[in-house]
């Protein structure tokens, strides 16, 4: 279980000085286009409250990945404003943006694992960037890999891992630093239903115990229905909130 990976309950506000009223992620009338005829996002506004869990759905090509890139500060909008942890990202200096990114865990759709590093080293990467000594995280990383079913593949290079295994390594890397905001782009796209459920429980555990705010882009509507989380739908460059019917017989 996720508790085995040692996720401590903690006071998020005390750690990072976020006002309880301030959304963790806020997009105000955000637009993004790559030219006059290539508008990806038209007028997107949304706000994720601290400790919330939100799914982002929509048809392929709707701009979900682009919206996530705005959220994890890989892109700047061509219109509107993106605020993360209450800070307008357009006004921040580079080093301040780097500090914000260290509080965001990202599961990239294409995994982005470093081929020359082992599964263990890939997962530990965010902690190395934070400057933590290896002795302080060795057990946590090993436990986390064990939790995602890769306890016996610590030294495996990405080239020897299957697509599903790579995805689990990518997820473990995103959550290992217990981020304040977790952004995942199709995180269960390459794993079977059981593993998808298991990974989702990991996200839920982080969300409940650490109060990590979670934003997941997915096509897996079955997972969305089971999750009882906020659902946003992105279509034609705009975001709308979706009210799904309560799942029957669920007890989460």
């Amino acid at each position: 279980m996720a508790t085995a990976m040692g996720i401590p309950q903690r006071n998020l506000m005390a750690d990072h000085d976020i006002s309880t009223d301030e959304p963790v992620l806020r997009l105000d009338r955000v637009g993004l286009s790559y030219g006059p005829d290539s508008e990806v996002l038209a007028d997107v506004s949304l706000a994720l409250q601290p400790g919330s869990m939100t799914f982002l759905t929509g048809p392929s090509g709707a701009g979900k990945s682009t919206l996530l890139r705005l959220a994890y500060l890989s892109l700047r909008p061509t219109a509107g404003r993106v605020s993360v942890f209450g800070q307008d990202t357009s006004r921040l200096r580079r080093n301040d943006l780097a500090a914000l990114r260290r509080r965001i865990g990202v599961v990239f759709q294409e995994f982005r694992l470093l081929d020359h590093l082992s599964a263990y080293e890939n997962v530990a990467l965010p902690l190395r960037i934070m400057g933590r000594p290896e002795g302080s995280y060795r057990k946590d990383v090993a436990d986390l890999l064990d939790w995602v079913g890769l306890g016996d593949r610590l030294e495996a290079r990405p080239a020897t891992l299957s697509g599903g295994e790579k995805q689990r390594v990518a997820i473990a890397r995103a959550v290992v630093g217990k981020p304040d905001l977790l952004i995942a782009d199709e995180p269960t796209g390459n794993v079977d239903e059981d593993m998808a459920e298991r990974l989702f429980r990991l996200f839920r555990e982080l969300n409940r115990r650490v109060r990590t705010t979670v934003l997941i882009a997915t096509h897996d509507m079955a997972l969305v229905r089971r999750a009882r989380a906020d659902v946003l739908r992105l279509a034609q460059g705009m975001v709308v909130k979706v009210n799904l019917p309560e799942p029957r017989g669920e007890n989460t």
Partner: protein
Amino acid sequence: MSRTASLLPREDAREGALFFVVCALCFLAAFSGLVSRAAYAAAGAWTSEVSGELTIRVRGSDADAQRAAGIIGTVSGVASAHVLTRAESEELLRPWLGATGLPESLQLPRLIAVNATIDAGEAIAASLKASGINVIIDDHAAWSSDARRATDTIGLIALSAVLLLGATGVAVIAFATHATLLARRDIVELLHLSGAKDDFIAGVFERRFLMLGVQAGALGALLAFGAAAFILFAIRQSDGQAWLLPQLSLSLADGLILGLAPLVAGAAAMLAANVTVRRALSGMV
């Protein structure tokens, strides 16, 4: 077992090519530097060997020559004055007239070899003139001036080659480093998106390319040293005569040239890595 592996992959083919380029450029630059310094050293050796030496030809009898030597010996600044024997004069002529011996009947010029301070020539000429001895004084000024001019030109050309090679080396190292780093853009981007500061990312690449530059530069300098040592050996084997060169040896200045080459190569590679990474990062949010 430590699991904190380098954030960059081990050397691959691209870095192998960069290593070769840096090594070759450092060899050429260091070797040119050694040639340049040797040219200046040769010029200094040639001219110092003849400066202060005067050759005086006496137009007169052997007695006039002996008298002239005596007068010269009294002039201030003269260390020694020696009338060359016939055997010594024949030795001087041997390169032109051969070693078969000269006919006894052949009159040879009466020469006095004088060691004196450089400015003693005029005083010697005045003393001999006052004594009524007709002489021609050769202070080798024209020859040493020509030699100095020739070696200065060689040295200048070699120095220009060093500077040109150095500048080309820095540019090529920068270009090759840039090309190598383009292939590693994925790592730059991942570190950036994971919250690494620009200094951290640049530092990762700087360290790798500094080591590459220093190691390749050291090998290039070592090869240049080997080439220079071989040439010195060849000169010494020929006793320095066939090469018309004075005896040369590797000096502290040569050590400085050889020591600087890898440091400059390492600094160039590190700087290029820094600029390239920061340029790549500047294109990211």
